């Protein structure tokens, strides 16, 4: 079934282009940073700052510690968002009564960005871990729930009918048909949620924290250590991309039929 394709010159050209564009970005960075006014540190300075970071950790927490602090917050918030959002999404997607009752409530809260919850969360949970995780929960719940709900309502009727004429119960229909056909929508939702969670955690950490990548950026900014700021930004980008890659991998593992078709 696999198509065999000859590698053409054009393929090589297209494969080289990304490398070129990254090199160009670095070149541009070098050019801008080597100016007199020093609006941005040079790549070399950022590199040196990174090395120093390993010798003298910030706030006695290693780089890995900071990364893990941020990732952990996102994962915990996301975990709760999945545990509640997926069943909730399945429920309003599948049961018409639940949909009529719960969907309007959800639609009311839905357009409020997670960051708007900061004052309330701080009031309720203080400035510790709980309020950060609650904030991430607010941000990640929406994509998980919306995607689950959309996935359920897009389950092909024909597949449901097949199960019904084989005498499947309502529960079997949800388990055997709705769940697998919704799975990839749910995973896509989790992927979006990770992106949102990553934004929210940084914002939360910038406001008050003594660990995490958001905290690292603010520390750099407070002491005018721009090299540290840039380095933290790079790490944020890399970790964000890795999280997304993990989900793509998971999607392939859990929904092999999707990859097969593409």
């Amino acid at each position, binding site marked *: 079934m696999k198509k065999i394709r000859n590698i053409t010159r054009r393929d090589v050209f297209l494969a080289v282009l990304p490398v070129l564009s990254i090199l160009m970005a670095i070149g541009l960075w070098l050019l801008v940073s080597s100016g007199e006014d020093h609006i941005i540190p040079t790549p070399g300075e950022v590199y040196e700052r990174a090395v120093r970071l390993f010798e003298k950790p910030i706030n006695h927490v290693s780089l890995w510690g900071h990364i893990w602090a941020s990732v952990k917050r996102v994962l915990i918030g996301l975990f709760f968002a999945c545990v509640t959002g997926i069943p909730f999404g399945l429920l309003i997607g599948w049961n018409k009564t639940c949909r009529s009752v719960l969907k309007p409530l959800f639609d009311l809260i839905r357009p409020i960005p997670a960051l708007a919850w900061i004052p309330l969360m701080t009031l309720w949970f203080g400035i510790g871990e709980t309020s950060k995780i609650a904030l991430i929960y607010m941000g990640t719940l929406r994509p998980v729930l919306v995607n689950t709900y959309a996935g359920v309502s897009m389950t092909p009727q024909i597949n449901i009918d097949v199960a019904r004429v084989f005498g499947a119960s309502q529960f079997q229909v949800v388990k055997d048909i709705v769940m697998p056909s919704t799975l990839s929508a749910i995973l896509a939702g989790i992927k979006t949620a990770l992106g949102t969670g990553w934004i929210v955690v940084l914002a939360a950490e910038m406001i008050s924290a003594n660990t995490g990548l958001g905290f690292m950026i603010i520390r750099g900014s407070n002491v005018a250590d721009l090299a540290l700021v840039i380095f933290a930004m790079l790490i944020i980008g890399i970790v964000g991309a890795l999280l997304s890659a993990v989900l793509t991998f998971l999607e392939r593992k859990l929904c092999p039929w999707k990859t097969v*078709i593409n």
Partner: protein
Amino acid sequence: MERKIKVKVEDLCKSFGDLKVLEDCNFHIYDGEFVCVVGPTGCGKTTFLNMLSNLLEPTSGRVLIDGEKASPQKHNLSFIFQEPSAFPWLTVEKNIAYGLRAKNKDEGYIKEQTDRIIDLMGLEKYRKAYPGELSTSAEQKIVIGRAFAMDPDLLLMDEPYGQMDVKTRFYLQDEVIRIWKEYQKTVVFITHNIEEAVYLAERVLILTNKPARVKEDVPIHLPHPRDINDPEFVRIRNYITEQIKWW
């Protein structure tokens, strides 16, 4: 000898809003009978099968299987839908086993039955493949296999061979006849293809245009396997074609 009635259709009517699709259908299908249903496009053939399998409620009248209201939980029936209906997330073998699993059959039996069907359908090579990787023809074989695997008492087929290439179509026509004879199933087979209907059926029901009623009930007494060049075969085929053209 009096034949037992498997399916009894009484004053069956179905409307979708203002659209009358079926009107006062009355007929029955005997146990172990092979019935083909032909009729103009969009006349309500699928709607009729959907009521036989209880996917749709009749507007009035009723459908009885073995004297009871039709129900997939109670009756061992299989339905082959007109549209492609393999589960994209299951491999070929799991698709075929699906109905048996849904009915909580014993795993040993499921395996044995699945192997037999895979062999029958010539799907051995694709056992672990997903339907999306296969051709339409092969995908339809999965669906047919999934229905046969149930050993259903009542097999409902809605233009099952419409999408298939000619060779597979001929093979599966003979196969459905073989299964029907061997296991004495009751088969209701919808088709657009009049030759196919005359090749397969013991009786052909001709439906009228919307709202559909049974226009005529044509028994075919030729023995299987039938010869499509036999003059009697040709005569019946032409006769049915005439009856449909009339509308």
